[in-house]
């Protein structure tokens, strides 16, 4: 098959409708970027839920000597063996508690070193010492929403300086992620619809401009595929450019956006480049390298069937 005509037509078609194609590419670019952000946020939420969501915990802080909380529970100084037994009994008795673990102040101190900047641990009079760090019970709940009973049962006990409830922070994080995710998807949806209309219009204009050629091609017996090929290639080229720009924008988002967050918010497991690649070329849910071409090719196929019907 001689494809010279097809490529000549492709080139002149792209040039003839440059502003239209540019509009398609830009709309595709923005909408696919939003969709890609939505996909990445989904993965971020999944990842967070996998590591933190399943073990939603409340932490029971235990008194240290000279406890900064100045809680009356700490009047006896550092928590004692009998107090610990009392607390464990309360935890065991609570129907809301699935399990709990004791974390010594040394273990807590080591974890803190990973989160806080090193200078607070250094010098002759460091800000944080082992003795400043409370020992803790890490309590895993049966139902992440049910904790009032165990909190009231434990918080009044001697040796308990306070309860650290992470659920609130995490539910905030999930809330933000969900809002952003749906926001991107809704925005992407509107823009993808706009892209679809633009594609349809571009094809209509191109079919008009080529009406004479198409008429002759049909008359002399060119196959439908051959007649449609320049249209399909045009659609593919605009989609490829749109997807390429989107891949770049999302890569920038991964590098600077996620890279920056990783430095500041360390208690979250952040998405990495594997997730990026999956959002680009994944099958389920479809990555943007699938969505983009589908968005331009499907209307092109449908409309060329209509406009160049043999």
């Amino acid at each position: 098959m001689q494809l010279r005509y097809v490529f000549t037509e492709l080139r002149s078609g792209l040039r003839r409708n440059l502003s239209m194609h540019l509009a398609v590419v830009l709309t595709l670019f923005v909408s696919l970027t939003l969709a890609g952000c939505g996909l990445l946020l989904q993965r971020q939420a999944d990842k967070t839920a996998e590591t933190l969501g399943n073990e939603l915990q409340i932490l029971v802080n235990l008194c240290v000597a000279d406890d900064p909380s100045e809680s009356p529970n700490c009047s006896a100084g550092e928590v004692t063996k009998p107090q610990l037994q009392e607390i464990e009994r309360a935890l065991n008795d609570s129907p809301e508690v699935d399990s709990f673990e004791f974390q010594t102040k040394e273990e807590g101190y080591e974890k803190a070193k990973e989160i806080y900047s090193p200078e607070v641990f250094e010098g002759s009079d460091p800000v944080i010492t082992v003795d400043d760090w409370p020992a803790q019970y890490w309590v895993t709940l049966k139902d992440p929403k049910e904790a009032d009973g165990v909190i009231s049962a434990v918080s009044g006990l001697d040796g308990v300086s306070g309860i650290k409830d992470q659920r609130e922070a995490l539910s905030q994080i999930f809330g933000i992620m969900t809002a952003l995710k749906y926001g991107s998807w809704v925005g992407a949806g509107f823009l993808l619809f706009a892209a679809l209309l633009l594609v349809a219009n571009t094809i209509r204009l191109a079919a008009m401009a080529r009406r004479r050629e198409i008429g002759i091609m049909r008359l002399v017996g060119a196959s439908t595929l051959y007649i449609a090929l320049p249209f399909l290639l045009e659609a593919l080229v605009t989609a490829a450019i749109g997807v390429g720009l989107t891949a770049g924008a999302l890569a920038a988002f991964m590098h600077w956006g996620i890279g920056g967050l990783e430095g500041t918010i360390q208690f979250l497991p952040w998405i990495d480049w594997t997730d990026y690649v999956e959002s680009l070329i994944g099958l389920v849910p479809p990555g943007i390298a699938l969505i983009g071409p589908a968005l331009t090719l499907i209307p092109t196929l449908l409309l060329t069937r209509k406009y160049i019907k043999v």
Partner: protein
Amino acid sequence: MIRFEKVTKNYPGPGKPALDQVTVDIDKGEFVYLVGQSGSGKSTALRLVLRELRPTSGRVYVAGKEINRMAGWKVPRLRRQVGTVFQDFRLLPNKTVTENVAFALQVIGKSRREINKVVPETLEVVGLKDKATRMPDELSGGEQQRVAIARAFVNRPMILIADEPTGNLDPQTSVGIMNLLEEINQRGTTVVMATHDHGLVDQFRKRVVELDHGRVVRDEAAGSYGFQH
């Protein structure tokens, strides 16, 4: 080569059928005029041969095949065997004479070598060898119609269909076009020409099929145009 069996064609909407129980049989190598007043159904009959239209009832055979039952993907193959010429030439204005003729071969996938061989040959047949690089708007009407005939003939079709090919031309130029169509016919291509040009039909005597309101009212070998006009 072409056979209509009780072909009726109704266009959507009210009104009488454009073709009404038309039965015609055209053999290989014949030259047939299709005459009749404007609106008598000539163009409809020709478009049925190309399967641009399908009959409402009856059968249309081309080269032994019933084309209204042909699968859609085979239609391009049918059209490669049927050259078509119109009153309005339908050339591509931004292509030269050679390019216009070559276009018909390019889009059906012929090789460049074959195109380079056949196109000049065909331009020679239609007498436009020395105008090969002209643009259509640099040609007279008769010359433009010759280009259109070259494009229709370049793939050496079994059938050439011409719908009022001289409708836009003066009588003298029309005679030249008729001579060309006769020559193509003598090379073995079946020619069907719709016309209402009395002079030509009377001058170049051929078989005449006359339509009136979609019905065949006359089918005469070597006939004249008729008396009523």
